[in-house]
């Protein structure tokens, strides 16, 4: 499979389906594993790294997964391809720009990836749209079992699965839920969310994980504790308690915006619409922010039946019809979010572009998508 086969469309988990998907973009679970009888990667020679890579690659290709997989040689790939996989959330930034022999096994519908020789020998990842942590865990646990039949993992009775960094030791599980929280941001309550998350021992990161800022009002929430809490406990805590509470918090913020600050809401949405429909140069950051406001407007209309001048402007300006005409859908917006990211733009364009050309192309794609029916 070629990357251009998938780069012109969004992946399944970002298609706006799945429980609570108006606020919960995606659920992801990663497991960190290392092979017994090998050093961790910082102490491995290139030769040993190669040996681990090949061993894991053979195993992953030989097990029967629900979706067809393909192997991607990360260290040998051009930077653009690697950046694309990061934008797609298929591999981590560290893996894309790390050192030494490393690879990724990626399932065709992009729900599963195995990163080989990232920080640990093996990092499995399962991703789904909306709040589906239970399903994610069932899926990843099954794959982990299949691999475990073929290798010995480094494991200790006291510390559990042994990882290169002691902050992952134990279950090696990292749950990460991507949330879209534009209303909390607009009413200046996002700090409350960040503080509450911190009090619960959770990490809050931006769209692309560690070290990235929250762009487009997307926040990734993940666990930090991996020792002494079982996988089932942490999954259920996220799924039953933490995430529903945050969703409720964002929904309350949306209602508050509608009831008490509707002109602020209208202003954000109408401005976003006007800029996106008319701009000729637009940076990735600006596009994410403005699309975020449109996404909020559409979701408030679809989920809460909200109909204000600002929200109506999304529909009437594009179609000349009333707010009930579903011309700009969540899918359109989600597509624009992803397809206008720098590596997506360039890969679909067929060659690298400098930032100014990217901004022009991005603006053109957005204009054409939003002006389609007007």
């Amino acid at each position, binding site marked *: 499979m070629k990357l251009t086969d998938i780069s012109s469309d969004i992946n399944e988990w970002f298609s706006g389906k799945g429980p609570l998907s108006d606020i919960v973009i995606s659920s992801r679970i990663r497991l960190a594993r290392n092979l017994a009888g090998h050093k961790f990667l910082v102490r491995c020679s290139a030769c040993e790294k190669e040996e681990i890579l090949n061993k894991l690659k053979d195993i992953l290709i030989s097990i029967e997964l629900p979706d067809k997989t393909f192997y991607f040689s990360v260290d040998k790939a051009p930077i653009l391809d690697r950046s694309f996989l990061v934008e797609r959330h298929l591999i981590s930034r560290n893996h894309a720009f790390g050192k030494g022999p490393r690879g990724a096994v990626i399932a065709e519908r992009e729900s599963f990836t195995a990163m080989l020789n990232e920080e640990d020998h093996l990092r499995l990842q399962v991703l789904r749209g909306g709040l589906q942590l239970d399903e994610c865990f069932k899926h990843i646990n099954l794959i982990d079992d299949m691999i475990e039949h073929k290798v010995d993992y480094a494991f200790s009775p006291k510390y559990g699965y042994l990882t290169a960094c002691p902050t992952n030791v134990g279950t090696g599980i990292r749950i990460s839920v991507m949330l879209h929280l534009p209303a909390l941001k607009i009413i200046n309550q996002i700090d409350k969310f960040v503080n509450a998350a911190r009090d619960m021992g959770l990490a809050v990161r931006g769209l692309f994980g560690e070290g990235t800022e929250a762009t487009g009002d997307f926040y990734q929430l993940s666990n930090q*504790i991996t020792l002494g*809490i079982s996988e089932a406990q942490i999954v259920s805590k996220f799924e039953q308690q933490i995430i529903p509470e945050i969703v409720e918090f964002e929904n309350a913020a949306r209602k508050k915006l509608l009831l008490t600050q509707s002109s602020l809401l209208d202003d954000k949405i109408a401005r976003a619409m006007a800029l996106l429909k008319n701009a000729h140069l637009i940076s990735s950051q600006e596009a994410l922010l403005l699309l975020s406001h449109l996404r909020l407007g559409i979701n408030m209309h679809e989920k809460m039946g909200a109909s204000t001048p600002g929200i109506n402007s999304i529909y009437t300006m594009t179609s000349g019809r009333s707010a009930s005409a579903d011309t700009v859908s969540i899918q359109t917006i989600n597509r624009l979010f992803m397809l206008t990211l720098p590596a997506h733009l360039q890969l679909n364009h067929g060659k690298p572009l400098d930032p100014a050309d990217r901004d022009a192309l991005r603006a053109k794609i957005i204009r054409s998508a939003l002006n389609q029916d007007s």
Partner: protein
Amino acid sequence: MICQICKKLEATIHLTEITNGNRSEVHLCQACAVEQGIAIKNQMPLNELLGNLLAAAPADEELMSDLDSEQVCPNCGMTLEQFRKEALFGCPNDYDVFEKTMAPLIEKAQDGHCSHCGKIPSKAPADTKKQLEILSLRQKLDAAVRTEDYEKAAEIRDQINELEKNSCTQHTSQNT
């Protein structure tokens, strides 16, 4: 270590500041840190926290066992000094080699947890599995006793006894 300001309470907040290559350290208790307006950095990644804890450790020679500080892992050549720089272990064996120094740090970084609870590889030897099960039951027993849930505690105690009895029978039958 005692807080540098009140000189009474245990210092739990350790700040290491490096300005133009000069390193300065401050050790404070929670209350004094709050009074000084020092808040723990928002969303400090755990490995950074671990690194900071380790960086703070050498100032307190007593905390650092002499044995561990000179210890070199025979398997991968890792030393504590090296770990301090990279915040990554060199091989699974390092968890044993540096256990003495690392155990309290891991416990701190893992919110007070010090042993595994959760999935066990199916290929783990049966006695390891049992060991872990007993370990986890013991943890639950402690919790039950703490919350004075004696009925539950008695139940867990019975389970532990049962497991230990079984494992004895197994050992005996293996020996015969």
